Every structure is written in C-alpha cells, then in structure tokens.
C-alpha cells in the first residue's frame, strides 16, 4: 500500500532540514528546570506504583480485588519505567541534568534486555538506519515479513500468530534480538568482522546476567518473601510482565509498521544529507493521537515522528512539536502519518496479514525514489 513518492530535490531538503534544525534549537533553549522536575516526578510515580503494586498483591488474601489492583499497579510501574522513564533517559534526553542516576550512561530498566545492549542496537541500528531493509533489524524483528522487500517464506503464512507470541513475550524477544541472539547463540557468522569493541561472550554474559536478575526478583525473591501468597504473587508478577509486553509491543508496532510506512534500500541512503535523514525518519515513523495520560503511557512514542527527528529532546516537548513539524511537512509536501490509536493499530494488523502471503509479481510497489 506504499504510495508512490518522489523524494524532493536536495536543495529543497536542505531548506527543510534548516527549518527542523531551527525548531530543534528553539526547543533546546526551553529545556531546563521544568524537564528535571517532570522526569523526577515520573520516577516518583513509577516507584510508588511499584511498591504499592508489590504490597497490595500480597494483600490479595484479604480480597482478590486487591490482588488485581496490585497486578495493575505493578504493570503500570513497569510500563512507566520502560517507556516514559527508561527509554527516554537511555536516549540521553536528560544527560544535560548531569545527575548520575538519571543518565543514559548508567540507567538500568525493569526489563529483560540489558540497557547497554539496547542502547547499542536500538539507539544505533534502529535510529540511524530507520526502516532501511537489511540494516534496521527492528523492521519485522527478523520474524515478520512486513513489506515486499523481504522474500516470502512459508513461515510467513502463520506470522500473525508469531506476532501475537512476540507481543506476549516482547521483553525477551527484544533482549534476544538486540544482542543479535541468532549470531551469539546459533553461531551464525557475520561476513565482515564485527566493528564493535565487544565480544560475543560479553554480549551473552550481559544477556544472562540481566535476564537472570529479572527472573530472580519477579519469580523467586518477591514470591518467596510473600510466604503463603507465593503462587498468587508469582502469577501476578507474570501477568504484570505480560501486560507491559503487550502494551510496549503494540505502541512500537503502531510507530513503525502502520500501513503508510515507507521502507528504504541501503543504496538510497549512502552519504545522505541531514535533510535526507530527516525525510527518511518522517517517512519511517507514524504517530497516533490520544489524551495526555495516554501519551505518557506510551513514553511519548505516540509522537514517534518527533522522537525520530529529535531523539535526544526531552519527551515532554514532543506533543508541542507535533504542530510545527506537521506545518513544516505540509509546506514541503512531505507526508506526515498520524491517526487515532485504533485506526493505526488496525492498519498494523492489516500489514501483518497482508504480507503473510506472497505478493503477486505485478503488485510490486513503487518505493521512495
């Protein structure tokens, strides 16, 4: 369904980049005290809901309603920790605060994926090579066929169920994927020597260390100290993790795999200018709308376009940026993909189902020139 689109001339894109750069520097001037207060508030809400969640779950023996409440509070804590706090802090949005506990260098999140591996692959591969087939490994996570650029295989027939499984266990999928698990565990060799100053062994150790810690606290430590409530707490922690997994996976799929998303070839992106990079970020991302609390729960990834343009601007500013970015896009006739959450999600499902089947030869879609 990718619409035919011709990339504007270089000098047009340069002017376009200048406007976005100016918007960026104007926004950076506003970053300060308010952002510091905001992120610390988020951290307080997240930690409070974690404590409340873990305690009320144990009180489930008084009334099952308390157990349900506890599960929801813990799920909320994990969602806030991963999205509005962790994801954004690890992008370096708050490094200017110079607070060692709110720094991209040190922050560790409540997620099976260790933060260093995540920064390496998500911040680098995904944000630099957004939607370049073969480079952005987040495009389909190596499991799903989401465009014609990937050859159809038999396994794609049931990829909708693969997708559901991926969503349920998203944190483990991400943890495995971000460290390029198939290389580390299956021994698949890279053609070229790795440029990363980190060995497979280090990657594997980080995976087991972080994953082990997460399992220990949610499925051993907290259930054990709950005594007779061992099983309900264990189950509650499991469900809280599942809720978080479903939510984060849904948000992320709505940000990159909606109907009108464009894909790119590496050859189109070599030596690209800043304008061309901005252009690709906008075409490779999609927004969705909703009330304020909803944006917070998505970690402002509901403003995926703004996030991809300015990944290190504190997320508090993304909503305010949607209007000017949209205006600039309109001015340069560049499509800006937004819609309601329900509509965007519907098109994601459509895309997954559509590419489950081989595409007819004449159906080859024209891609961005």
């Amino acid at each position, binding site marked *: 369904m990718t619409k035919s689109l011709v990339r504007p001339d270089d000098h047009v894109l340069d002017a376009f980049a200048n406007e976005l750069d100016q918007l960026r*520097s104007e926004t*950076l001037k506003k*970053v*300060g*005290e*308010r*952002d*510091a*207060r905001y992120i*610390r508030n988020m*951290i*307080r809400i997240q*930690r409070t809901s*974690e404590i409340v969640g873990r305690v009320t779950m144990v009180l489930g023996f008084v009334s099952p309603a308390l157990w349900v409440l506890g599960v929801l509070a813990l799920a909320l804590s994990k969602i806030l920790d991963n999205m509005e706090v962790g994801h954004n802090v*690890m*992008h*370096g949005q708050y*490094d*200017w*605060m*110079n*607070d060692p*506990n709110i*720094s*991209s*260098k*040190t922050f*560790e*999140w*409540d997620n099976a994926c260790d933060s260093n591996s995540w*920064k*390496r692959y998500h*911040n*680098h591969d995904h*944000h*630099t090579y957004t939607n370049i087939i073969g480079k952005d490994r987040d495009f389909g996570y190596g499991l799903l066929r989401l465009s014609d650029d990937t050859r159809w295989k038999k396994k794609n027939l049931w990829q909708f169920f693969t997708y559901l499984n991926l969503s349920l266990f998203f944190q483990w999928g991400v943890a495995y994927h971000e460290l390029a698990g198939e290389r580390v565990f299956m021994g698949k060799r890279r053609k070229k020597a790795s440029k*990363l*100053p*980190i060995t497979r062994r280090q990657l594997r150790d980080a995976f087991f260390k972080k994953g082990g*810690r997460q399992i*220990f*606290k949610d499925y051993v*430590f*907290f259930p054990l100290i709950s005594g007779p409530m061992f099983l309900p707490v264990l189950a509650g922690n499991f469900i809280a993790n599942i809720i978080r997994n479903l939510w984060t996976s849904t948000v992320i799929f709505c940000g990159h795999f909606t109907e009108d998303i464009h894909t790119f070839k590496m050859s189109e992106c070599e030596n690209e200018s800043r304008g061309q990079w901005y252009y690709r970020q906008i075409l490779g991302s999609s927004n969705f709308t909703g009330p304020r609390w909803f944006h917070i729960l998505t970690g402002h990834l509901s403003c995926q376009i703004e996030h991809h343009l300015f*990944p*290190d601007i504190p997320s508090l500013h993304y909503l305010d940026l949607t209007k000017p970015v949209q205006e600039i896009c309109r001015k340069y006739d560049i499509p800006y993909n937004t819609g309601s959450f329900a509509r965007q999600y519907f098109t994601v499902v459509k895309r997954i189902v559509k590419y489950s089947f081989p595409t007819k030869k004449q159906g080859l879609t024209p891609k961005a020139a």
Partner: protein
Amino acid sequence: MSLQQPASPDMAADSRSNLLVRASNFMAKTLFNQPSFGAFVEPFVQLAYKNWQVDGIRCKVMENRQESSHVFTLSLKPESRLPNFQAGQHVNLTLNHNGSRHIRTFSISSSPQDYARNKTIELSIRIQENGLITPWMAKHLMPGARIHMSPPAGSFVIPNSIQPLVMIAGGTGITPIRSMLRSMVQDHNQRLVTLIYFGHDHLFKDELNSIATEHPNIEIHFVDTRTQGHLDEPLINRLCPDYQIRQAMICGPHSLIKASRDLLTSKGVETSDIHFEYFGAAPIEDLPFEHGDDGSLPTVKFSQSNTLVRHQSKKSLLEVAENAGLKPLHGCRRGVCHQCVCQKESGVVYNTLTQQYSDTGPESIQLCVSVPVTPTSITL
C-alpha cells in the same frame, strides 16, 4: 596526589560495614535496578529537601559576604561531620542551576581550627565575568540555602618540616594560603613565612596585615601588579633574599606559577621543594576556539589508559581517542545513539551538534560530537 584520609581506628569494623554496603547495593541492583537504595529514595527525599543528594555532604549557607567587587565569601555549615582536613585543601560544590547539576572546585579559605570551633568553613570565590555559575552563586546562594559538597581533598598543604617557607600568591590564589596562615597562627606555629601577594585588589588585606603585625615570624608583602609589575629576580631578592633555602608554596594563575617555577628552578631550588596549585582558570572568558596551528591545540588526557595527546585539528574527541589507539564504545558517530557518552573530568568541550560549550567541571559528554576547547581530561 596524596589525599589525606583519616586513618580508620578499627579496620575490621570498616571492612564489615563495607561488606554491608556492598550487599545492600547488590540487593538494590537486583530488586530495583538501582545502584543503591539511596539512589532509589533520592527523588522522594528531594520532595522534602530540595536538591538532596545521596552522596556528598549537605551544607547550609550561613552567610554570603561581598569581599570586593569580584569576590564573595560563602560561609557553609556542613550538616554531617566533615572528615579531618588540612589547610590548603579544596572541595567540590554541586550547584543546581536550571535543572542541571554543575560541579565546581573551590579552595577552603578558613582553617581546620575555625571548623573545629564554629563548625563552619569558608570559601572565597571569584565571580567569573562571563561565567554561568559563579555570578549566579553570588546572587542566589543566600543564607538558608542548601548545597552539596564533596569531602575536602588536595595535596597543596603545608609540607611537614621546620624549613622556612616562601609563599607566592596571585589574585584569588590567596584563598588556600589564607587558610594556611590562619591555621599556623591558631596553632602558635613559629615557622618563618614570607608571603608575596600579587594583585591589584588584595583580598583579606586587613586580616593579613594584622596577622603580620602580631606574629613576627610571618612577613607579608603586597605587590600591586599595575604599578610594581610581576615576579622577577630583583623583586624576590628584595622581598625574600633567602628564598633559595626555603620551601616554596605557589598558588595563582598559570602565568604566575610558570614564572615562579622557572625562576626558582633556575636559581637551584629543588623541584621537590616547590609546591603549587593551579587556580582560577576561567576558560569561558577566553575561548581560543579558532584552533590555530597544531602547536596551540589543547591537550586531551584519557585518564584510565594513562594517555596524554594533543588534540588534532577538525577531529572529534572520539577520533582523537581512536588515533591514540583507544577503542571507546561508540555507535553512530553523529550524536544520535549516545553509546560513546563518557565522563569528562575537566575542561571545556564544544558540542558540534548542539553548538554549545560544555561546563568546565565533571559531566557526561558524547565523544563523537565533542571538540576540546581547553585542556580536557576524560575517564577512558
């Protein structure tokens, strides 16, 4: 650097409490992904106590006193006990300005005996003309405000002997020397001291004058740099003829330290008898940002790998590190992915992406988009 650590009276208790701290940090990491339980509660405590930090010593500002048009003195009362310190040492203050933490180093200008008596310490601070933090401090750190401070540290202290001293100070470089003189006087120390103090706006002039009149072993000369010039051989011969047999303590701007060291070593004074501390560097004023010839490029120190190189023109710190044979973790090389974020210990760097100059103190920087403006030290 010989940091003066108070000797622990009970090593066993010390290692036991160390073990407890480590166990507690391990649990904080395991259960809450935090480096310590202190870090976990820090944002909550900050609700009640603004800018509270789990590390450092919290201090209450008791007084903010104008010393001259460019210098003010802060009187601070630490809210927990300060470890033993020596006259001449310095502290790092963490200052919260517009949501971000700035760390600045200042010499203590009062003496350890002053602290023992009234539980306060004094810092005398020059307001940097185009600085961000010191003008703000002078205006906003009023009595009652709270700031966090590191324990005192530093090796610029009076050497332990009875050899006479020649002290050479320039500008606000007088602050650690004032601390030393106060400390000696309060200790009834009879050691011979000659202080030569360069400047045109001498700080603590009355106080120093009265110390000199009351204590025959202490001699003080105020040299006005506008009328009497800078340090040279005739001057030191006139003010302190036996300087060659004294230990020298020098504190002030780079130029003064260099001139004094050159003069003293050329006259046969052993380098081990010359103690000095660089002071009052104000890089934000005079950014030589147009890097000229290669000879004038700033130096870059990678502290963990013990490497000192000169910066290369039109290169980022990441490239400089790589050319020096280091392999810093890195990613996109365009300021997006934040993998190459490193701790800068000191120096001003210019961020080519944000087009902003950094702070002078310790903070995280992205190597791939940073260019050093002044000599820079990086934990790498």
